[in-house]
């Protein structure tokens, strides 16, 4: 139990020596004051757990074991772990850039609270622009308008658990139904993202909406779904329809205001005005269609849970 932990700790200083590639805003660097106290505290607790004599301090973990074989095993294990980690990272970064993904998960509690409030009540928010910092967008930590992937992921998982609970209340639960519900919701997200990508490509909208942005905006509806299902379970059928209406309106408003900045105002640089008359209409259509799709899918995915 102790050996893998100390092996893990041995790789930590090496990982911290290489700073994250060029983006100081992504995660705040708390490593300057953290490790000495952290390591010391960890080592002392490790000592008390394993019963090795105290007083060795933090002079390095090589003197931890008196047995050289265990020492060698620890070093070998830690080097294997680093190799495995590097290989996995290399394979994954061939398909998607991990840095871009990290940007979407750089959130903190304040942002999550404000964003949830914004999703449920967006009518008083004034400024919907995503602020930029030297041409990368601000991380969600610094800008409440930035999309993130943390809330959609957590909301998706919460929705699946809630669906299981709702089906259990109606005595219709079985583990296969849970998997079916999860994959149905996932497939709808994939379909919506693909249709939006197709629509944006066909209308040659040169916005900076990446695939992850679209996944994020498409995943925000799960927050509305959770709220709707909860109200349906607590207050019966009337509560369900009221909550459905409320979260649909809030979500439609949120989507239209957020995407309006990105889609409707990203005109190509050389449009002299010949094709400009048709384009804003089509862009408006696609924004409104995206917004109108949300209540339909919320109803579709939650109606069977609240009978």
């Amino acid at each position: 139990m102790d050996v893998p932990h100390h092996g893990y700790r041995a790789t930590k200083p090496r990982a911290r020596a290489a700073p994250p590639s060029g983006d100081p805003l992504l995660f705040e660097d708390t490593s300057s004051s953290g490790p000495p106290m952290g390591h010391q505290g960890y080592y002392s607790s490790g000592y008390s757990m394993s019963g090795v004599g105290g007083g060795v301090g933090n002079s390095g973990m090589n003197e931890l074991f008196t047995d050289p074989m265990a020492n060698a095993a620890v070093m070998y294990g830690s080097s294997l772990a680093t190799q495995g980690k590097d290989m996995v990272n290399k394979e994954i970064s061939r398909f998607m850039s991990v840095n871009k993904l990290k940007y979407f998960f750089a959130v903190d509690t304040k942002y999550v609270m404000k964003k949830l409030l914004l999703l449920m009540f967006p009518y008083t928010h004034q400024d919907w622009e995503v602020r930029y910092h030297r041409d990368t967008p601000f991380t969600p930590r610094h800008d409440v308008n930035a999309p993130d992937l943390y809330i959609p992921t957590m909301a998706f998982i919460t929705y699946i658990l809630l669906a299981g609970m709702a089906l259990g209340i109606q005595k219709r639960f079985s583990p296969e139904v849970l998997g079916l519900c999860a994959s149905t919701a996932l497939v709808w997200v994939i379909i919506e993202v693909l249709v939006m990508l197709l629509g944006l490509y066909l209308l040659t909208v040169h916005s900076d909406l990446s695939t992850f942005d679209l996944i994020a905006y498409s995943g925000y509806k799960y927050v509305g779904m959770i709220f709707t299902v909860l109200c349906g379970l607590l207050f019966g059928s009337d509560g369900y329809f009221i909550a459905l209406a409320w979260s649909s309106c809030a979500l439609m408003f949120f989507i239209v205001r957020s995407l309006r900045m990105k889609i409707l105002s990203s005109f190509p640089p050389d449009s002299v005005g010949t094709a400009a008359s048709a384009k804003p209409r089509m862009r408006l259509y696609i924004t409104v269609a995206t917004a109108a799709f949300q209540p339909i899918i919320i109803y579709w995915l939650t109606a069977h849970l609240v009978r």
Partner: protein
Amino acid sequence: MAFTLYSLIQTAILCVNAVAVLHEERFLSKIGWGADQGIGGFGDEPGIKAQLMNLIRSVRTVMRVPLIIVNSICIVLLLLFG
């Protein structure tokens, strides 16, 4: 509608197959969607029809070989496992 991931894969394979079977000279040129009929002015934005023709042509070019492989795998698996 309960979707599984398997049905999503099935739908994707069927749709891409459907786009790949559209023959260039026998069909697409006849209805005016050929690859050489879509080039409009240069400075102008390509319209939806030009983008769609471009998309069909690129799907047909890119997915030809992978589709052969994927279809063969599907045929073998469906024969074996029904």
